[in-house]
């Protein structure tokens, strides 16, 4: 569906940065509120195209949608829309500019775009949420929404993999998630001195997940190899492939399925993805040079 804004879906909507939190050395979460009109409220799993004026646009994960939270004396923009938190890793010119954006600056948002995780379809099920690296950003809204509606879901397991302990996102929230009833397991590839958590690939955590495989939904986001192997591990536990969804990433550009930059076989991921059923995603992920 094409997002409707007053000036069309290609016109960025001004949002003011109200807070900036450095999650890691190269990853930042920005809190954004609308200057005037707001974009439609994203559902968990969707992304926006964020425009840093004079630099360019990049697709950025929405990592929280919620009411205004006062940060360092900031004030809401007359309640014109929920605050969006978006988490971005500096990997190129635009994302470096996004990461460097300070509170008070205005950026442009288009969207939200893409398919969501389909959390409502998983009501009544156990949830397994597996995130690798920056992949936790688009899964955070799922965690927050599921924990705020706790009785609607069975057991909630959050599996997190990262390169090192210093690369973990949202670390200040993990104990809160546990206190609200989620099983949160964290593993790193490379421990640093003092790290007391798991060491190893995220797939090793799948065996300790408390889940009824016949009544569970899994959402996975991270590097493609990590997603494929994690999904296979969950299938090995007895989960049905149809209950597993992955979030794929390609070169999102227009967000509307017009330009074709994000084509993956028969799909345009900005429109048909980024979230796809496992059975639809995996055959495409395993084709070389697709």
């Amino acid at each position, binding site marked *: 569906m094409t997002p409707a804004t007053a000036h069309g879906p290609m016109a960025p909507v001004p949002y003011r940065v109200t807070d900036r939190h450095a999650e890691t050395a*190269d990853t930042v979460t920005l809190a954004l509120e609308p200057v005037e009109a707001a974009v439609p409220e994203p559902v968990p799993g969707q992304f926006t195209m964020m425009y840093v004026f004079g630099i360019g646009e990049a697709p950025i994960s929405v990592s929280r949608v919620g009411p205004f939270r006062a940060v360092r004396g900031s004030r809401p923009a007359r309640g014109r829309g929920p605050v969006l938190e978006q988490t971005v*890793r500096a*990997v190129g010119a635009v994302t470096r500019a996004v990461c460097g954006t300070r509170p008070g600056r205005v950026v442009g948002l288009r969207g939200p775009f893409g398919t969501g995780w389909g959390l409502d379809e998983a009501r009544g099920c156990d949830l397994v949420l597996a995130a*690798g*690296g920056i992949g936790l950003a688009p899964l955070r809204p799922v965690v927050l929404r599921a924990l705020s509606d706790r009785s609607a879901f069975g057991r909630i397991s959050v599996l997190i*993999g*990262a*390169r090192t302990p210093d*690369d973990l996102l949202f670390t200040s929230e993990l104990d809160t998630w546990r206190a609200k009833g989620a099983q949160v*397991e964290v*593993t790193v*590839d490379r*421990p640093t001195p003092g*790290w*007391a*958590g*798991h*060491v*190893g*690939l995220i*797939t*090793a*955590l799948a*065996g*300790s997940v408390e889940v009824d495989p016949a009544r569970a939904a899994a959402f996975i986001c*991270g*590097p493609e*190899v*990590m997603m494929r*192997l994690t999904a296979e591990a969950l299938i090995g536990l007895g989960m049905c492939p149809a209950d597993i969804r992955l979030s794929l990433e390609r070169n999102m550009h227009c967000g509307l399925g017009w330009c074709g930059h994000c084509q993956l076989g028969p799909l345009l991921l900005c429109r048909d993805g980024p979230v796809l059923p496992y059975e639809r995603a995996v055959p495409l992920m395993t084709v070389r040079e697709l």
Partner: protein
Amino acid sequence: MEETNSVTAGALAEERFFAGMPEPHRAALAAIAVVVAAPAGHRFFEEGDQAQRFWLLRSGKVALDLQVPGRGAVVVETLPASSMLGWSWLFPPHRWRFGAVAAAPVTAFRFDGRGVRELCAADLRLGHDLLLRFGAVMLDRLEATRVRMLDLYAHPEELR
């Protein structure tokens, strides 16, 4: 380490590692297993020591480590609940290649490796079955190690 009681074939049937194993084989293995509990920090074995036991972790977490000069015991992998700990008992010269320490309080089924080798020698079907099961564990760990070598979470600029 505290030993509490003996193990039944039924208890082994609840563990994924033993899924589908014929009851007589499970019973034979259960007869030479005990339930153990270990506090965090308990060292199961040291690199180079004789390897004559293995453990199926029921709860807790065990860190596999290697002594690195100048760095001490470096953790290379942790094993969560449901993991099998130890396979050096199966292969000559029966010496541990890594160390293992409880990273959290652990409960486990502990098996006598020499006894299991004798069972396998006397019953080749059991030996074949068990070897395939340990082979699957090794395959998973090898795959995980190789994937970690890909450094999937690295910053793109580091990979250029």
